[in-house]
């Protein structure tokens, strides 16, 4: 398996207090990595680092095998302003192609085709011409996921993708992400609060905990002291 992202003993500080220290991990193609940790443990800071929006104070984040920061399909958390945004599903998905345009101002036929392909892939053709603000929470997440796929076909970075979804839609969302990972071999990095779902779906876990974070395969995590703390009653 080829390596895509290598983080070598990176540290981040935020407003002069260190949040992450001496963290090392590697993401290979085909991996499904879940990043978990308490509030304030540096999940969003690390996300920014991976996207290339924030440089680590120490250490380095290496992108390998031709992966570029702008080619990571990013699914950010929704903002309140988006909830009532008047834009059609197609307009939103197509905007994922912006990173391939550079200084050319308009989208090409190929961009539109890619947008259509991803809309089909996620099964949202029925709502193609609807307005984003009229969609349910789950449908909105699918649209944003289609947009993320337009931006990066190798790797997706999902920032708490099930926040605010009901349990049934949450499960559907997890299954969809799993399918993208298993069938389409898309590398997934997911920031999550939901440790039991993380353990269920992910191949690797990164548990951020200030100076002694855990990184390893999911099985190792369950048997680690940190994992045992959460799964002492033997959930597999």
């Amino acid at each position, binding site marked *: 398996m080829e390596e895509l992202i290598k983080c070598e003993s990176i540290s981040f500080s935020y407003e002069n207090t260190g949040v992450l220290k001496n963290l090392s991990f590697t993401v290979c193609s085909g991996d499904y990595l879940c990043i978990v940790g308490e509030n304030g443990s540096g999940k969003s800071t690390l996300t920014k680092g991976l996207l290339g929006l924030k440089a680590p104070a120490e250490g380095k984040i290496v992108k390998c095998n031709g992966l570029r920061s702008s080619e990571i399909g*990013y699914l950010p958390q929704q903002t309140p302003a988006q909830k009532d945004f008047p834009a059609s599903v197609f*307009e939103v998905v197509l905007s994922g192609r912006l990173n391939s345009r550079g200084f050319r101002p308009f989208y090409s036929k190929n961009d539109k085709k890619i947008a259509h392909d991803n809309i089909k892939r996620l099964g949202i053709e*029925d709502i193609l011409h609807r307005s984003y603000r009229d969609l349910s929470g789950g449908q909105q997440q699918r649209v944003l996921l289609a947009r993320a796929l337009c931006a990066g076909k190798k790797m997706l970075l999902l920032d708490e993708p099930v926040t605010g979804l009901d349990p049934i839609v949450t499960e559907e969302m997890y299954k969809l992400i799993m399918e993208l990972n298993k069938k389409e071999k898309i590398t997934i990095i997911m920031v999550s609060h939901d440790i039991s779902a993380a353990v269920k779906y992910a191949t690797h876990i990164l548990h951020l905990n200030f100076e002694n974070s855990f990184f390893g395969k999911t099985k190792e995590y369950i048997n680690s002291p940190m994992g045992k703390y959460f799964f002492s009653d033997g959930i597999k």
Partner: protein
Amino acid sequence: MFDFIEIFQHGFMLRALIGGVLISLCAALLGVSLVLKRYSMIGDGLSHVGFGALAIGSSAGFAPLEFSIPIVVFSAFFLLRISENSKIKGDAAIALISTGALAAGITAASATGINTDIDNYLFGSILSLSKSDLIICIVIFLIVMIMFVLFYNKIFAVTFDESFAKATGTRAGIYNMLIALLTALTVVIGMKLMGTLLISSLIIFPAIISMRICKRFKTVIITSAIVSITDFITGLIISYYYSTPTGASIVLVNLTVLIVFIIIGSINDRINEKKYIKEDVSSKNS
């Protein structure tokens, strides 16, 4: 019916018509982005800063427009930074700057005696647009249109989702600054026509009106442009015939249109809601 040709035979009315249509178009285009980004108050803040600068400029004997454009542009960048900095609450800071600038302007004006110029800037006047103002209008209009068309897709991306745009390599900060810069230019020149107190309505009303019924970003933009021009011309004609203040007439026309659109929009939403529920149920069953 009104005799349009007769009205616009007057040079000042023709200038007001051309200048106003151009400014309304700019304001409508920028307004959609500002309203959706929750930056509506920036337009309002800028108009007050603009008034302060114009009053101080004309009291001190500078050419008012040339003096106030750089000041308002600078304030636009400053207000944008405040809005992005979550530590100072943006809306309160804008109110502070607005009232501060207004107070400074009025003090400067009263020191030299309040003249009709100042009064025009506060409440707007269709008589006030000179030939050189019209040329500035045309130049600003061209700049806004070219920028908007060239960067349309980027403006959409940055307006809809700044964090995604940044993550995929679009430098969102630059486009925010571009929008602020164009807004500043539009506000300064639009103030002459609409007045300080009403210019922000030109930015906010068309966007809000079109968002009641439009479902796509592109149609929102086009509809606000059409609404903006129509309402401006209607308000202008009303103000000519009934000698009402221009700015206020246009705002009242906008307000009426908004009420109509809200009613149409809520009926529309109800029909769509039923349709979508049916569609969703049938696609789940299939």
